[in-house]
């Protein structure tokens, strides 16, 4: 087959900014005498940028112009041009993930808009990407083990529960290596709001980071279900996230910059931050009491997750006509057999209808098509279905809606209300898609 996608991942984090370029090989898994089945058969990272400190204006605002220059330079060093890039994800993560920053970066990278289809990532998506990028999902899939993956970055720790290779829950706490920073004289030069609440460090004064590190690691133990939760956990929990750890045994897996400080003993002031102290405390904590492992990737886990794992392929029998790819940010409206009529009425031209129902006869396909066409009233029709029937349904819709109607009908992608979907031009007979704000996977 020999088709491939060039994918760029860019992670603008609290502390560091990184870029990777990867090649996603597309292969046909089906035999010669059956309907084709295209899958991403290989993910290969072909370029990794150095780990840069995130360019900031002041303490918290990301410098969009500097990000743009960084991306331009890294494209050049990777030997790729914008035209070659098929898909990619920019994720703005951790404490940096604020509206102003998202807007600044989106604006700065607008000329790269065709390349990147994701613009921001909430803490839940970041947990998913880090767990995949660190190889924890693959480890769980291969061994059948239950894994609790923790990506400890500068400002946040992203947690993902993985059972049999499927991420079943995600969470996030404000525990990171850069919550406190020292200048070269050993005096505190930055205190994050979270750190301020947890310790009595003050600017310009020396402070022993181990005290705060102990508290933070205690919070991590609570988040991992290894210690009964108290008010401390609520203090550090990232807004809008929640997570319950079920009973049972978990292999704990680490990534993120702080993961590098767990096994290696570092000078306490190697980076002028909490990282080495946190790593040391984690090593001595309940987290490392049982079975634990470091991810295949540590500081690069999230960016590799963004570059290699954000795109997936639709089913190989899909239908599209009069569609200008890429399609971006299609809001998902979910419907079943019972509430189809009601959901159809809420759909406007840019939403995608995700329909789940029983394996249909052709008569049922036609009646479904008829209802959809009628409800669309001449607007564009974007439909996703959970059963393998997209081509038949799309064809039936197109037949009723007429030659000029814009019709897209895909299957093989699990969606739910609240998701947003990006779709890019076809490879093989499948369409690469990115499901955004996807917290839980549907397998595969």
């Amino acid at each position, binding site marked *: 087959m020999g088709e491939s996608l060039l994918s760029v991942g860019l992670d603008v984090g609290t502390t560091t900014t990184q870029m990777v370029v990867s090649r996603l090989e597309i292969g046909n898994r089906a035999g010669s005498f059956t309907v084709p089945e295209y899958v991403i058969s290989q993910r290969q990272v072909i370029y990794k940028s150095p780990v840069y400190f995130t360019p900031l204006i002041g303490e918290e605002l990301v410098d969009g112009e500097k990000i743009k220059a960084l991306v331009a330079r890294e494209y050049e060093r990777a030997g790729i041009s914008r035209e070659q890039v098929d898909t990619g994800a920019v994720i703005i993560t951790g404490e940096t993930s604020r509206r102003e920053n998202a807007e600044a970066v989106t604006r700065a990278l607008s000329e790269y808009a065709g390349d990147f289809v994701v613009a921001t990532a909430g803490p839940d998506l970041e947990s998913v990407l880090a767990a995949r990028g660190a190889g924890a999902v693959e480890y769980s899939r291969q061994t059948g083990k239950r894994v609790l993956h923790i990506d400890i970055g500068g400002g946040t720790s992203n947690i993902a529960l993985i059972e049999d290779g499927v991420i079943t829950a995600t969470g996030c706490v404000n525990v990171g290596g850069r919550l406190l920073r020292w200048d070269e004289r050993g005096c505190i030069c930055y205190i994050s709001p979270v750190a301020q609440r947890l310790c009595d460090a003050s600017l310009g004064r020396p402070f022993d980071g181990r005290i705060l590190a102990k508290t933070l690691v205690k919070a991590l133990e609570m988040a991992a279900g290894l210690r009964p939760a108290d008010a401390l956990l609520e203090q550090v929990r990232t807004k809008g996230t929640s997570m319950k750890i079920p009973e049972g045994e978990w292999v704990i897996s680490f990534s993120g910059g702080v993961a590098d400080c767990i096994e290696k003993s570092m000078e306490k002031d190697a980076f002028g931050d909490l990282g080495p102290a946190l790593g040391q405390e984690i090593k001595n904590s309940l987290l490392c009491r049982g079975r634990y492992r470091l991810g295949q990737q540590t500081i690069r886990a999230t960016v590799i997750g963004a570059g290699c794992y954000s795109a997936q392929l639709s089913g190989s029998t899909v239908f599209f006509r009069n569609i200008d790819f890429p399609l971006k940010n299609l809001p998902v409206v979910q419907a079943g057999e019972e509430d189809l009529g009601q959901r159809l009425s809420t759909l406007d031209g840019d939403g995608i209808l995700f329909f789940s129902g029983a*394996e249909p006869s052709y008569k049922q396909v036609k009646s479904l098509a008829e209802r959809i066409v009628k409800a669309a009233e001449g607007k564009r029709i974007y439909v996703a279905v959970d059963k*393998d029937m997209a081509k038949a349904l*799309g*064809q039936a819709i197109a037949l009723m809606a007429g030659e000029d109607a814009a019709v897209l009908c895909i299957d093989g992608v699990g969606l739910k209300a609240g998701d947003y979907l990006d779709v890019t031009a076809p490879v093989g007979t499948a369409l690469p898609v990115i499901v955004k704000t996807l917290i839980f996977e549907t397998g595969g």
Partner: protein
Amino acid sequence: MNKQDLSAMVAEILRELHPEPMVKGSEYKPSNPGPEQKDEQYHDGDFVPDVTQLNLRKLYLVEQGENEDAYRKMKEKTPARLGSGRAGPRYKTLTMLRFRADHAAAQDAVFSQVREEFAGENGLVEVKTRCKDKEEYLTRPDYGRSFDEENQQKIRKAVTGTPKVQIVVGDGLSSAAIQANAMDCLAAITDGLKARGISLGQSLFVRYCRVGAGDAVGDVTGCELVCVLVGERPGLVTDKSMSAYITYQPRTGVSESARTVVSNIHAQGTPAVEAGAYIAELIEKIRKNKGSGVGLHLEEKG
């Protein structure tokens, strides 16, 4: 040597072979006694449970497996009879019964007939190859590829003009496959061709049909392309699998390599409806390429 001497001698020889004291039968305690056997009581007139109703992908009979959850996950991905456990070196009774039941269903599918009303109910015109019955169909493949004068007349009468595409539904080796899938698939193909503006002749149902019967239909109708939907040889996974053989310029004697095939059309493979839509697109591609079979794939790769 009398009988007693003989048995004494045999015992002696056995002792020499087994210098250690042999365990007496009554002392034998199996290390793994297996699950407790329930004595199920059946009464006259009761039905025993139908073994074919069990979902094989969920049936896990291994005793004391290392990781049952992981094994069950694997089983969900394949129709193969994994995790069937064993009784000594043999299958368990349930496994054997199910195997024989599936095998019987496969054989039945070959010998069963497509219902007489099938063609009429579905708007197909029925014709018959030269075979006079199923037995002859199985023993004389050549008869299953041609029509007598009467049936040729019938085809001529049914298919007016020279259609671009002709669809033939044939019972083949599985009547069950045709009854389960053919009409859904045909409906999707028909709509797909309509959307592409490709004309379609009156679809036929051929009894005692081999794939080559499509070539004979091509001889009679002069169609540009024939698509034969035919029941596949039944297997132990399903007796309802159908294939579509698409031949460009179908004429008697055409090489088998000139056919493009889409196989495994059934509920657990490619659903009939989706396969139909795919076949319609494939037909368009073959017509553009002016050739089917091996040539088509080469061209695609090139």
